[in-house]
């Protein structure tokens, strides 16, 4: 009887802990059935989107480890990556060397923006997510100033295919056809009609290994300590502020690399809007994978990208077969995707309160027991 109960409790705990991914698995299953897509098509699409998005999403893990929540400030790294890509496109550096050069160029920009973001987040401790989110709009304005007014006038841009007809500023779409899928096509193999971009996956695997290794380093342990309790970490001699800034800088640099991988896969990017939703998509996908504001793993990244992007692929078609309008499916996808972020955040808060009240109840019980013991002695 006891075993049965504990099994039921375990199952309930598992359900509670994985409500969001389970919900998404069910919705995806229904949408896949309704869409009627073949498995090879779906697999092809999901693998392409994994190669495109996983690196960006992995960049979110380190700030979570440092207790800074979901880093909406990753968008700053994406902007750095885009500026680097514009310069590389103008210098006509093509293929993999172009991607590598863009990554190298993005590093100083990302570090600068990461430093700024980290310092601001230290000032707004406890409100890192909203600070990062609003910071995006501020830095977005700076980005527009640089790209729309300084490029071509102050920063030399020679190719008229990139510049606006007025002679300065960058066109609304930046063409990267000369580096399109250069990473994805390198060492790509096709298994049963499904293209697997081995080089891209190797780069992702390297980042995963880096994250696993980093967690075991002194700095990684410091970040975990800071993430668990800042005051205790400070008492233990850890430079809390510095550790938090480093975590944001690392995340921003990786986000810049991720954006470059993302854009090379697509072959162009909308100059002024490509970065605006990237943080939101990555965070939504991570939450869909079962992560929370204070806990995320590499497994959450992979599960999230599979579920979130399966939804992207199948929802319009499922909507079309249900209502004869793909737009309905698209609205449904947006509604569910952003609803999930809300749900995940609410569940996180509820869990935190439950844990707090649980600890309170335990404390009260202990105090009561102590009182009774004292009374009995008297």
């Amino acid at each position, binding site marked *: 009887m006891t075993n049965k109960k504990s099994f039921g409790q375990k199952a309930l705990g598992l359900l509670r802990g994985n409500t969001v991914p389970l919900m998404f698995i069910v919705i995806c299953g229904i949408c896949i059935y309704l869409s009627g897509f073949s498995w090879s098509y779906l697999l092809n699409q999901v693998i392409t*989107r994994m190669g*495109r998005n996983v690196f960006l999403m992995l960049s979110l893990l380190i700030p979570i480890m440092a207790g800074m929540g979901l880093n909406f400030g990753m968008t700053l790294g994406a902007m750095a990556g885009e500026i680097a890509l514009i310069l590389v496109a103008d*210098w*006509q*550096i*093509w*293929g*993999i*060397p*172009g991607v*590598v*050069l863009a990554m*190298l*160029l993005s*590093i100083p920009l990302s570090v600068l923006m990461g430093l700024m973001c980290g310092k601001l987040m230290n000032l707004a401790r406890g409100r890192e997510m909203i600070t990062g989110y609003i910071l995006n*709009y501020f830095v*977005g*304005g700076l980005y*527009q100033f640089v790209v*729309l007014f300084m490029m071509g006038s102050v920063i030399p841009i020679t*190719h*008229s*295919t990139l510049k*606006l*007809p*007025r002679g300065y*500023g960058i*066109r*609304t*779409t930046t063409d990267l056809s*000369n580096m399109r899928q250069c990473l994805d096509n390198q060492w790509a193999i096709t298994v049963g009609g499904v293209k697997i971009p081995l080089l891209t996956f190797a780069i992702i695997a390297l980042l995963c290994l880096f994250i696993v290794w980093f967690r075991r380093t002194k700095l990684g342990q410091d970040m975990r300590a800071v993430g668990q309790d800042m005051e205790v970490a400070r008492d233990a001699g850890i430079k809390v502020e510095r550790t938090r800034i480093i975590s944001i800088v690392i995340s921003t640099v990786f986000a810049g690399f991720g954006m470059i991988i*993302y*854009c090379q896969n*697509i*072959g*162009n*990017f*909308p100059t*002024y*809007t*490509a970065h*605006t*939703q990237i943080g*939101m*998509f990555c965070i939504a996908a991570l939450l869909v994978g079962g992560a929370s504001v204070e806990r995320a793993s590499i497994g959450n990244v992979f599960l999230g990208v599979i579920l979130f*992007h399966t939804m*992207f692929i199948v929802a319009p078609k499922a909507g079309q077969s249900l209502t004869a309008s793909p737009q309905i499916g*698209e*609205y449904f*996808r*947006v509604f569910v995707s*952003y609803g999930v972020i809300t749900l995940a955040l609410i569940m996180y808060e509820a869990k935190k309160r439950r844990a707090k009240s649980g600890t309170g109840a335990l404390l009260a019980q202990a105090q009561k027991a102590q009182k009774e013991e004292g009374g009995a002695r008297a």
Partner: protein
Amino acid sequence: MKARKILIRLAVLAALIGVAAWMMVIGRGHTVYLDNKSVEYNGQEYKAFYRVEAAVKGEEKPLRMDARDRVSTICIGQSLHLDLTVTDEKDGQPRSLSVDLKLPYNMDGPILNLPALLNGLPQEAWLDEFIPAPPSEEPEDVELGDEFGGGLGLEGDDVGAIMDA
């Protein structure tokens, strides 16, 4: 200890700059135009070949040029290797030759005149630059999203959608 740290940092920075410089050299892309057109140099005319086939790395099939034809190919890096099969005149015997060239770094679209090149003329006779016509001068509206600086989020993976379309 501090000096050693600074030294290591400087070495890493130098290595990164070195890699970036190397990428700029090996990744410089050129659109190379091959011309099989008659050319006049120092009062002498060098006639176009009847047919030229050029095998270039990265192209699935050899590029075929009849007299007065122009073809284009892309070349990443500064070295271009051409395997040419040249037929001088109709019903003539084709001959094979290989050409290795260094492309100028600052030239986006070098035009190589094959009759001048294969007749051993100096570079100024066979190398020219392709200047593309300026793109449409219609003013382009820059879409910066809504008044809050972003879209409504309804566009989804919008960049991907552009390519899928």
